């Protein structure tokens, strides 16, 4: 598997990469001949050693698998691309596909294959709005601030809302990571969402155990966040196991805060996290990543976000590797039935720039990605990396004819943020609902 993976720095660092291009091509030929069944009989990480392996085996849907059980990995690619694999068929088969099968076929696919098949996969989720419908592209509004200053956060939030951002979630990475601070941020966002009747949900991206404590303390928790990986040891290094997630999910469900759906989990993933934790079991990073989707799938998330370029150049060296990984993750996640979004991003020590991000954003938009990030001017001043801006999302919506989630879109039009004309056209004035608040601030800076 590792030898068949498209080259990237993390697999080189792990020492699992193909030694030459020829060896890679040969490995891909060997992999193509492998029957899909082989992945059920031979686990890459033994069943006894790893609870993610056990999850994959114990929840495998043999009935759904029967439609593809006769295929080799190479045949699987042809079948996925074929007209036999319609959206409905892909949905039916998805629970029969294991992460390793998805990872394997991914290694035989070109970028356009990853886009075409992902586009056929339909994954729709809901909480206070509906995410993932055809013709829609949602955004996570990410109003981070280096000291969690409440007015600083509110300023970025308003900027984003006025640019039509925030239908996937309003989600803050806290600068100070403790329960008290998380509760403060939850209240802040809840006040805004309820106060202005915005059909969206909030999330503080703090550790799952912090969110559990916040729920117990009576905080307004919409979504439970956790970073997840594809091996038990990775998740151990993140400080949780599958039971922790199950407990947190039922706690969030008990609050009953979703108005039209009950997908209450928000997961983040990213190639390289297992190697970074010394927990990759000599697997390549794309396979580890696909296994994380088995974890996600178990808990019916509203959103799964692959934070593709955040980890740094020792895992994904440049724009080319980041773009490939973003398309791979989106494809594998969608194939496994997940509401995939992507943090189209890079750090300043990676060989990448805004043009690479434009490329990946456009490709993912074509591929039917459920959501992307939205941040003022692409600059996250807390996490020190660059992701997609509010402007970027509007660009993608405009060139690809995409709209926000329907409930949120209706709110944008009623609030006079979007003009009441087809497509994404912004009003030039501050809408009435926010005018009083803005006017009450003095002009002096």
């Amino acid at each position, binding site marked *: 598997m590792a030898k068949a993976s498209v080259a990237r720095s993390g697999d080189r*660092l792990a020492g699992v990469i193909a030694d030459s291009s020829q060896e890679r091509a040969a490995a891909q030929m060997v992999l193509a001949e492998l029957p899909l069944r082989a992945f059920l009989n031979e686990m890459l990480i033994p069943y006894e050693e790893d609870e993610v392996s056990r999850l994959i085996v114990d929840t495998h849907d043999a009935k759904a698998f029967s439609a593809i059980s006769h295929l080799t990995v190479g045949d699987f690619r042809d079948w996925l691309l074929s007209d036999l694999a319609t959206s409905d068929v892909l949905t039916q088969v998805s629970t029969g596909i294991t992460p390793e099968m998805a990872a394997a076929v991914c290694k035989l696919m070109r970028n356009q294959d990853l886009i075409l098949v992902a586009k056929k996969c339909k994954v729709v989720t809901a909480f206070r709005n509906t995410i993932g419908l055809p013709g829609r592209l949602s955004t996570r509004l990410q109003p981070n601030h280096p000291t969690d200053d409440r007015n600083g956060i509110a300023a970025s939030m*308003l900027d984003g809302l006025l640019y039509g951002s925030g239908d996937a979630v309003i989600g803050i990475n806290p600068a100070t990571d403790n329960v008290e601070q998380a509760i403060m*941020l939850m209240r802040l966002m809840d006040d805004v969402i309820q*106060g202005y009747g915005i059909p969206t949900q909030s999330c503080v991206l703090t550790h799952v155990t912090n969110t559990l404590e916040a729920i117990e303390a009576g905080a307004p928790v919409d979504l439970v966040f956790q970073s997840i990986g594809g091996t038990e040891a990775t998740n151990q290094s993140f400080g949780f196991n599958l039971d922790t997630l199950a407990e947190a999910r039922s706690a969030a469900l008990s609050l009953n805060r979703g108005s039209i759906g009950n997908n209450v989990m928000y997961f983040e993933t990213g190639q390289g996290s297992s190697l970074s934790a010394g927990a990759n079991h000599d697997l390549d990073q794309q396979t580890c990543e696909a296994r994380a989707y088995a974890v996600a799938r178990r808990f019916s998330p509203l959103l799964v976000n692959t934070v593709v370029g955040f980890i740094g150049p020792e895992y994904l060296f440049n724009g080319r590797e980041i773009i490939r990984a973003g398309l791979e993750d989106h494809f594998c996640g969608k194939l496994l039935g997940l509401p995939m979004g992507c943090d189209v991003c890079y750090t300043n020590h990676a060989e990448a720039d805004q043009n690479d991000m434009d490329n990946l954003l456009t490709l993912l938009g074509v591929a039917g990605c459920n959501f992307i990030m939205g941040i003022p001017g692409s*600059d996250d001043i807390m996490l020190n990396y660059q992701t997609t801006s509010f402007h970027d999302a509007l660009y993608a919506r405009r060139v690809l004819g995409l709209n926000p989630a329907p409930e949120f879109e209706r709110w944008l039009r009623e609030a006079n943020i979007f003009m009441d004309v087809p497509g*994404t056209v912004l009003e030039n004035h501050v809408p009435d609902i*926010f005018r009083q608040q803005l006017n009450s601030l003095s002009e002096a800076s």
Partner: protein
Amino acid sequence: MKYEQADIPGKEARELVAVGPAAIEGLGVTRNPWEKLRRFTDARIAQGRSGVSTPTRALLEFQLAHAEAIDAVHVPLDIDSLQQRLSELTHEVGRVNALRLRSQAIDRMTYLQRPDLGRVLDEESRQRLVSSRVNPQSAVDLALVIVDGLSSRAVQDNAAPFIECLCSRLNNGDHEPFSLAGLSMVEQGRVAIGDSIGELINARCVLVMIGERPGLSSPDSLGLYLTWAPRHGLRDSRRNCISNVRPAGLSYDEAAERAVYLLRQARKLNTSGVALKDRRQSPVVSADKAAQNFLVK
């Protein structure tokens, strides 16, 4: 629109962009009538838009900031000029030339892709360090290690003034003094290389000053990492970190105060890392009150 030619990169170019054309309406740019919110945050809010896209001025400002961040990563540390600044310190620690060391990452491209090599001294450096010990049997309290890390600029600008503040606070008052080892400077290094250095020179504690991953708005962030009883192979959980030391972030004085607090606590507890917490009082505000902001009164 007209921009004047920027002869000199950096600050001057930034100013040229910032003054830009005052009247940009009528040229396709829609300004946002909420620019006054900028007082609350350094985030790039209220940028205005050309259609739905980023206006030229904001685009150029962004590219300049990105260029500064890239340069922080790739421009090598100017060791000689840093040595010059260190020798001008009032504290005696600057008077002896710092030991110049290298990691096993032979160049920046290797460094970026092989963090493992950046954590280990190359053989020549190791030998030089070992032979530099005057009296190998007697331990010294604190080794100060300057490492280029991911931002040479952070180290170039901030290491010397921080050391000045640190040394003036370190052996102040009634506390038991810390004896200092000579400074060392490491090229192509990661945080953990400090632990090896501390171990080799028999230091009870090591404080690493390293260039942090540069942000778009903070290409010059210095990070401080403290390890008590350093030795090769320790994990992150054994270190304490103080981040964002720079003029526009955590001041040298405040950083030095925190570092000295942690050093004294580490000595008291005989350890560092997760077991060592900054327990100085911070004001407690209830979550309800703290959540108030201009959007919701």
